[in-house]
């Protein structure tokens, strides 16, 4: 698959003290919806800003849509919605869209047509001539999304696009994203809302303290962590766990934080039946049995917790902790 974003060793040091990015390698394929997740201060927005020339990287190798990162010309093919945008309140949404369309080099007739079309797509057609100052946060977010699409971009970068948007609005935005994908565009999403990413993303990357810790499809990331789970009514004793482990030799147990749960790394239900027999014969009541794949949230939490400073917010200071 052709790479839309392909960067290696991206580093960003602020004032020679704060190491926001510490060698990020990232590859986003054409036509996919890619999700970048990470805790606050992980460097997600910094990475996006480096790609969009809003921030100058200390070190960066790689390409954006085939051009060297930092090339201004290629940005005419990129749409961007920043996280805490503050569009001019004196403009109407139609004026805003036309303005940013012109800034991206879209011709006048095309700007007018696209502005009307996109306002309809994001459900803001009735507010086209109202000033942004009178909008709610969710409405501004919808207009911001439309703004990012004004130049028919090949790559759309959205930083927290559903921030402040109600559930209906989120659903609408998801539909827009899927439509963009169907049109062959690449969508790069930065979001904290893991469940939403899980619904739309083809691939994700988890970033912790300026480094990409994991990257791949959700299936790839959960590989080795999926399996059949047996959940009892009460905690399962260590003796029972040992007995079951002996009976199911060859099937690796997966660590779980729930004391009443046993998870086995297999997709074969028959292979797990002896465990149920042992539990039943010992008088344990089985509450649930089924195939279980870790959620994106669990993957995320695990990746963050694996890092010594993962749960701490903020970028890492050089030679120390944040």
């Amino acid at each position, binding site marked *: 698959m052709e790479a839309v974003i392909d960067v290696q060793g991206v580093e960003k040091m602020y004032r020679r003290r704060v190491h926001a990015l510490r060698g990020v390698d990232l590859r986003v394929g054409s036509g996919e919806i890619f999700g970048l997740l990470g805790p606050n201060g992980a460097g997600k927005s910094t990475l996006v800003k480096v790609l969009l020339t809003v921030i100058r990287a200390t070190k960066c190798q790689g390409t954006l849509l085939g051009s060297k990162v930092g090339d201004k010309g290629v940005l005419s093919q990129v749409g961007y919605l920043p996280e805490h945008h503050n569009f*001019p309140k004196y403009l109407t949404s139609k004026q805003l869209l036309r303005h940013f369309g012109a800034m991206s080099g879209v011709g006048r007739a095309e700007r007018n047509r696209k502005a009307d079309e996109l306002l309809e797509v994001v459900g803001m057609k009735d507010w086209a001539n109202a000033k942004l100052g009178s909008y709610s946060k969710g409405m501004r977010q919808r207009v911001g999304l439309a703004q990012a699409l004004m130049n028919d971009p090949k790559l759309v970068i959205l930083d927290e696009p559903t921030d402040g948007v109600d559930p209906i609005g989120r659903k609408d935005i998801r539909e827009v994203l899927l439509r963009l994908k169907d049109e062959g565009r690449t969508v790069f999403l930065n979001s904290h809302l893991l469940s939403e990413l899980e619904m739309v993303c083809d691939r994700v990357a988890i970033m912790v303290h300026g480094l990409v810790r994991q990257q791949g499809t959700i299936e790839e990331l959960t590989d080795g962590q999926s399996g059949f789970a047996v959940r009892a009514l009460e905690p399962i004793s260590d003796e029972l766990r040992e007995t079951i482990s002996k009976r199911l030799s060859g099937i690796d147990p997966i660590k779980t934080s729930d004391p009443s749960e046993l998870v086995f790394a297999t997709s074969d239900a028959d292979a797990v039946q002896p465990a149920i027999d042992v539990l039943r014969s010992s008088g344990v009541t089985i509450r649930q049995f089924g195939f279980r794949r870790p959620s994106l949230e669990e993957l995320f939490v695990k990746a963050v917790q694996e890092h010594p400073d993962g749960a701490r917010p903020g970028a890492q200071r050089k030679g120390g902790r944040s």
Partner: protein
Amino acid sequence: MILMQTKALFIDAYRELNAKKLFWITMALNLVAVIIFASLGITQKGVTFWHWQFESMFFNTGLISQELFYKLQFTSWGAGFWLSWVTTILALVSTAGIIPDLISGGTIEPVLSKPIGRIRLFLTKYLTGLLFVALQILVFSFGCFVVLGIRGGAWEFGLFLALPIVLAFFSFLFSFCALVGLVTRSTIASLLLTMLFWSMIFVVNLGDSIMLQQREGWKLQLQDRQGVIEPQIRFAETRLEQWRDEGRPIPGEGDEPLPEDASDVLEVVNPTLRQSRERVEEAEEAVETWTTWSARVFALKTILPKTQETIALLERNLISDEELSRLMGTGNDDFSADEDMPAMADPRATKAVAEAMRERSILWILGTSFLFEGVLLALCCWIFARRDF
């Protein structure tokens, strides 16, 4: 694409100005100023305002023409006060936020993510700030042009020189305002520091005027005092001859000693000569001192924008040397200086200062001022191009 982006930024700037009430308030005030300008008139007896008549010795059609009267009003209070003070202050209040607003979080990111170079973006935004003043000056100048045409009987297109001249004047201050706004990211800080900077320039200009007035005043005093010495020497020489003829002992000759406080025999013969020579020495020292200080202030002014002289360029272009000389020379031709009058108070010095100011070259006035602005803008571009947002 460059034209399209520039046009988009200017349209956006216009919308921003349009949304600001202050833009329209200033525009309305400009129209009021034009109405006041139109209400002024000049007759054989003096000046009129609406239907009121004020008799004046200096302003009447016997001394100056209607055309010159209106041109004087335009250069003195129109450009010299209204445009360069009232409109400029209102313009600074309105435009001080342009750069801090541009670089505020959430605003700059979507703009920088577009295919536009940072330096071009900054300079275009800077130019949009000048748009505010340009529109105000244009309205005021056009109004005054019509008034001068109808009431003064002269369609003086030179009035439109106010546009580039006042715009240049404003741009010197706005470049400083933009730099402070870029560094501090604060509208209030950039406005207050620009006002402070402007006050500093005002003080330097005041200092320059005082030094020049002193220098020119003392030069005139020196001339006057040197003029007094010659007859006194001649008088002393005549008296010395008389003494010799009368056979009186001459101090400093033969056994007769010269008094310690006299530098030569002439001072003994004519005691007022010594006093006059001391007064000449005093004037020579003063001329030297004030010339040195004037040169120092001039050097300081060279590196600063020449706000006062820039505005004065309008007067230079609208009012000829002959007209100015006639206006300033009124009543001074038969002036005789009082010996005890301070150099500053000499009206001939005021005229000499005005001439000295008028002789300052346009290259020095505009060249060094634009150089100042250029350096500040280069610094702004350097900061803006390197900053992470």
